[in-house]
């Protein structure tokens, strides 16, 4: 049977800013943001991840923010703070 040309139904995952992150890792260090979604154990889980990352990444700063409800987007000022003050953000979804 011959092959048919088809259209992919899938959207690619947005490219991560790996180059900028790599440059910062070699220079002044990485600023990590934490966005706690306020679910029961989100703060603990994110702290575990942060602690683990600290063992292998040159972290220069940590910025923690908490949104009041898991089911709503973070307020614009929180997003702006994280965008301005961090290089990447660890976020929680669902539980």
């Amino acid at each position, binding site marked *: *049977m*011959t*092959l*048919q*040309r*088809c*259209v*992919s*139904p*899938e*959207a*690619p*995952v*947005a490219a991560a800013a790996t180059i900028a992150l790599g440059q910062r890792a070699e220079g002044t260090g990485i600023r990590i943001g934490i966005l706690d979604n306020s679910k029961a154990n989100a703060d603990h889980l994110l702290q575990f991840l942060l602690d683990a990352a600290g063992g292998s990444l040159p972290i220069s700063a940590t910025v923690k923010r908490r949104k009041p*409800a*898991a*089911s*709503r*987007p973070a307020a614009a000022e929180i997003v702006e703070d994280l965008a301005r003050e961090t290089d990447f953000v660890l976020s929680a*979804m*669902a*539980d």
Partner: protein
Amino acid sequence: MNGAIDKLLAEPGAAFEAEDDSEAAFEYCMQRGWSDGLPVVLPTTERVERMLAYCDRPWDQPVAMLAPRFGAATPLRLAANAVMAGCRPEYFPLVVLAIEAMADEPFNLYGIQATTHPCAPLVIVNGPGATELGMNSGHSALGAGNRANATIGRAVRLSLVNIGGAIPGLGDMCTYGDPTKFTYCAAENEAANPWQPLHVERGFAREATTVTVIAAEPPHNVNDHESYTAAGLLTMIAGTIASTGQNNTYYASEPVVLLSPEHAATIAGDGYSKQALKEFLFEHGRVPIRKFSPENIERRFRGKLAHRYGDAELDTPVAMVERAEDFIVVVIGGAGKHSAYIPTFGNTHAITRALKHADGSLVKSIAGLRRN
């Protein structure tokens, strides 16, 4: 139009090659995580191009960015998902319209896609387009058997997974899943609706074809073969609404009351307007705080909701909506004395969109959208 699609597929990953054999196509798509677990139609360029004959906008320009992946929902990709779902090409405008509606910020697609809660977008179609497409609004409208209902809803779901990244266990963290995540779409039974149909109530012209998207749980049946008055029926519906385990007890927003034609006729026959029945349900569909567990009273009502219930007596009734008009009332179904209550995700608002031409005028005939 032949071959117009090819120049849009230059991007790496935009196209693939596969055997157009039903079993092989199913296996191929399953291996790539593109199916919902049921067989799909292979989205060949020829089939996708036929689907796009009903799309009057640029095929490679996003109509929405779908969370949580924030993938670009281009007509091209949506058409591929519609082909896979089994849509006829004339269904495609409603698939695009539903996707656009879900990307409206108040719908809160990110939360709906990622949540542990069992919700899925319920697509309700109103207006002449539903009739033109042969959609089912009667017996088993939310069940199986009608191609338009089944495949429009399925195309929406496949798009949410393949473009939005709502992959079970990765981007969709729904605890136990939900059968409406295969498809959840029906037309309103406007002929049996004694009041304004949903889209007219929400400010659209009767001759508009609309979709309303609602982040809904599966329906919970209300069996009432005994009541023959509006007050009797509404008491039974209110009793079903008043339950403790739903999101609407703490995120009050737009749960759905689905009335069968017979129940709707009984309620309207007693002189109730749609607003009057909503007010009845608002007043009576409540749960006293004492019905919740002590832990929920302490942590939810005295904690997170302290601004509303911090000092409330245990007999204080908790309503499922903030205002009576927040209930969404639709008439769907055939003969029989079964209605339904459909709770929602909570932090969400239903969105209604009308099918329009590029110049903003209402589409009067979906067949008229077809380009040669």
